[in-house]
């Protein structure tokens, strides 16, 4: 079974600085998707960025980028120019390409605080 691990329960960053959130996963599959979700206090999960395992190029969405290391099964999220609105819980998630329907497997989350 696939597992997702986020080893940093809490992280802190100064406004305008850069922070990297770690995520590792375990799978025997070669094709899959990886996601980062943000959960603010409103509780609604918001998709931040996604990566397809067959693509070597790291995904980028504005200030958010990932470092996808397939061999190491690592999928870290980098937030550049951090803003106060980035403060939230961040979840890394895995989805099999073929199996398990569309079920996402989530890590335990990292709570990010942004200091002004």
């Amino acid at each position, binding site marked *: 079974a696939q597992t*997702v691990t986020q080893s940093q329960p809490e992280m802190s960053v100064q406004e305008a600085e850069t922070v990297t959130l770690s995520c590792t996963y375990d799978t025997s599959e070669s094709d899959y998707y990886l996601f980062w979700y943000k959960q603010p206090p409103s509780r609604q*999960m918001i998709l931040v960025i996604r990566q397809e395992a067959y693509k070597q190029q790291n995904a980028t969405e504005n200030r958010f980028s990932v470092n996808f290391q397939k061999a190491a099964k690592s999928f870290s999220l980098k937030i550049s120019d951090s803003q106060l609105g980035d403060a939230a819980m961040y979840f890394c998630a895995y989805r099999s390409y073929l199996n398990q329907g569309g079920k996402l497997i989530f*890590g335990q989350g990292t709570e990010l605080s942004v200091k002004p």
Partner: protein
Amino acid sequence: GAGVSQSPSNKVTEKGKDVELRCDPISGHTALYWYRQSLGQGLEFLIYFQGNSAPDKSGLPSDRFSAERTGGSVSTLTIQRTQQEDSAVYLCASSETRANYGYTFGSGTRLTVV
């Protein structure tokens, strides 16, 4: 609708009572998922509906939990004889047939069992 709608937003119930949580997915989304998020924890998969296929119930923690989806749209998660350990946020999400672009989540129902 424009997003995934869940009701109620908050629910306090007495131990032993039954509760129903409702999810109204995005129109046209064929897949619907329920997750449970306990305090300080990640999201735990509960159940998944895809079109007219039999639902994947592999994540339901006990036979006190059940869910249905009527007409391929609205879903209801029912918890019978609630226990204090059922206290959590219950999140619903929907997606198109293949969730390649992730899901759209609702804001969840916070269930408190006293």
